[in-house]
């Protein structure tokens, strides 16, 4: 199994940390992982993206141009990466703030109302975990228990009390993802 | 009386410190460097710390200080001695570390390293020999060359309008909270040598007590660069250098002298 994906959106949406939690979950089940962020001025308020690879084998290039999955969380990312999904691949997005929706017919397209659900749950910070839950429903490449173990490993001890909230957010995402 | 009868321990009134090697000094006759070297080494000997002292030599006339000082030494790139000394002192905090630098080295190319080592309050001693000129490279203008003073790169005299003012580095670094003892001395008379040596002793004691950076400027001459005989050079120094670079303590026990 090798999953090559890009997660892109605004800085502050938790794009990089979503990728990090996925990578950590992969490590928890003895897989190889790589996490390659865009870095530089665009980090500050602009768009951020991260390429994450989870694989059973040694990972070659951490730099990719085509992806099995794209999680796109703003219009710029949609414009930039819709065309980069491999035929037969997955595009997951939050329609909130998207004016030009994806049009490809050779890929599977899913939506998750992440921003709306996060605000319903009363915590905009769990937006990325809702989206992550939606992804895990579509592609259960990492087991939920390994996600929790990954969270425990990557979060400082003082934040461990937030893990149940993150679990709830993941379930919320899993239950609300919609195939278009 | 035979000379062998005179050379007896009981007749000994002066002895070269064993911390100066027997290598003939490469300095010009009348130059202050030899004396400044000697009193530094005498202090190290009198404090009994030579096995724990590491010196840093500069680029300039005293680049070969390590040939004359009989202790472990590192020769630094031009101006970098305070950074080199920082590296040594931070990894061997129990050792005594000093730099020995000239005016071009310390105040021009190494201005930044000097400023920041002083500002961090590194527990080191800086000995700064200021003779207002680049001696080794043949008498070019230094940051401390006086207004109107001739050098090979200010052949018509230092023009303040285009070449800037002589830099009073010692007063400047005395303002920094990291410096604990800052003084300006000279070595042109026996009395001055005794005072300078006392100042160097205070500097090394400051380091022993981990109080911060100790900075001893020694205003000196450069009879070759100034194109004078040694006596005239010393007189010229008293008449012209001292008014601009007045001798005396500038900061004692971490307090500026008013």
């Amino acid at each position, binding site marked *: 199994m090798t999953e090559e994906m890009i997660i892109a959106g605004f800085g502050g949406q938790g794009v990089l940390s979503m990728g990090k939690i996925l990578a950590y979950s992969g490590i928890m089940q003895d897989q190889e992982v790589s996490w390659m962020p865009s870095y530089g001025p665009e980090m500050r308020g602009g768009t951020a993206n991260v390429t994450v690879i989870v694989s059973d084998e040694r*990972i070659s290039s951490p730099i990719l141009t085509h992806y099995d999955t794209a999680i796109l969380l703003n219009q710029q990312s949609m414009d930039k990466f819709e065309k980069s999904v491999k035929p037969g691949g997955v595009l997951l997005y939050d329609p909130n703030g998207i004016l030009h929706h994806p049009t490809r017919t050779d890929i599977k397209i899913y939506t998750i109302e992440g921003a709306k659900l996060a605000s319903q749950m009363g915590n905009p910070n769990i937006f990325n975990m809702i989206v992550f839950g939606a992804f895990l429903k579509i592609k259960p490449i990492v087991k939920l228990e390994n996600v929790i173990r990954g969270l425990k490993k990557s979060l400082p001890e003082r934040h461990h009390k937030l893990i149940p909230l993150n679990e709830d957010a993941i379930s919320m995402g899993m239950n609300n993802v919609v195939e278009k | 009386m035979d000379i062998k009868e005179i050379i007896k321990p009981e007749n000994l009134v002066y002895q070269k410190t064993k911390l100066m090697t027997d290598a003939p000094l490469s300095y010009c006759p009348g130059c202050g460097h030899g004396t400044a070297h000697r009193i530094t080494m005498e202090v190290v000997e009198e404090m009994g710390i030579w096995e724990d002292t590491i010196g840093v030599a500069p680029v300039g006339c005293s680049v070969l200080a390590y040939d004359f000082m*009989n202790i472990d030494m590192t020769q630094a790139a031009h101006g970098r001695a305070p950074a080199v000394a920082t590296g040594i002192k931070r990894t061997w905090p129990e050792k005594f570390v000093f730099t020995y630098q000239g005016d071009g080295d310390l105040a021009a190319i190494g201005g930044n390293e000097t400023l920041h080592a002083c500002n961090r309050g590194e527990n080191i001693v800086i000995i700064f020999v200021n003779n207002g000129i680049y001696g080794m490279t043949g008498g070019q203008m230094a940051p401390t060359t006086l207004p109107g003073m001739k050098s090979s790169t200010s052949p018509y005299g230092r023009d303040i309008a285009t070449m800037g003012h002589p830099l009073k580095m010692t007063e400047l670094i005395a303002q920094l909270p990291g410096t604990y003892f800052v003084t300006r001395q000279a070595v042109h008379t026996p009395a001055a040598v005794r005072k300078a040596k006392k100042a160097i002793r205070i500097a090394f004691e400051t380091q022993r007590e981990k109080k911060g950076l100790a900075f001893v400027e020694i205003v000196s001459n450069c009879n070759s660069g100034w194109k004078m005989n040694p006596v005239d050079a010393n007189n010229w120094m008293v008449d012209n250098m001292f008014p601009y670079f007045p001798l005396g303590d500038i900061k004692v026990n971490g307090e500026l002298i008013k």
Partner: protein
Amino acid sequence: MSEVKLMKGNEAVAEAAILAGVDAYFGYPITPQSEVIEYLMVERPEDRTGMVVLQAESEIAAINMVYGAAGTGKRVMTSSSSPGVSLKQEGISYIAGSELPCVIVNVVRGGPGLGTIQPSQADYFQSTKGGGHGDYRLLVLAPASVQEMADFVDLAFDLAFKYRNPVMILSDGVIGQMMEKITLPAQKPRLSNEEIIERYGDWATTGKPSTRERNIITSLELDPYRQETHNHKLQAKYKKMEENEVRFEAINCEDADYVIVAYGSSARISQKTMQLARAKGHKVGLFRLISLFPFPKNELNKLADTVKGFLAVEMSAGQMIEDVRLAVNGKKPAEHYGRFGGVVHSPEEVLIALEQKIIGG
């Protein structure tokens, strides 16, 4: 006990430094490697091992702090990125001339000048041909993964002390910023001052006891004939490195018709290209340089007997290709491909270049 973690390349270098028993790190922040000093400051290695960490006032000061501490036999390192490494060249030349051990990490970004902060490999010449003034060489190691960013720290120090020579870890923005799974080694103790004096007392300036002559660290020699002799000694040392310290990884080269030569992130990217090319039926191998100096010239020359051509892939306008051509020595075509100035080539772009420039048709 070894521990599996997810870390950035820059963080891995920092953690590996603590674990390798390094005595001091002196650095100055610059993108894309600031995580090295940031990580060290957070970790408080003073409390863990007694390692000193100091943010210097400039890269120039940092390398001179390294010079001072290295002269005392301590294990010291610095890190920076391209413009900062240019500033360090004066100090590196002194360290090489004085024959001191130290480790310098360069997380390369695009140039020339202030350039970009994005990944680049355009400091190959600077790293492998000396970099500063005078006839000298650094041992240069090129990690291609976060794991190697960590592993090469200890290796670099071993080599630095074996040859009393500065060692450069030449990385780039991809390897520095990327996170991967990493297994950290166990903590090595730092040497005590007594051990340092015992091991390096014949050259290190640790304070002169009455039992030995004074130790002097200097690169100055006023007599040109003696300086020439010193240079001969250095050259003999570099020759020994060439004989003993060549490191590389040959993947699928045994049956290869075409070989990609690359290092660092370009090697990772080219590994994917190799897979894509093999899927298309081309017998492509990857020759990954691990040591850039010494350069594996004999091995590449031998490979030239069995393959039809080489593609040197590097994020520069063509630097390593010169060494590839010298090694291949005209036996087979050797061409260059690379995006540069901060642009990272994709595996597909490399494949197109491989097909057009080497495979043909």
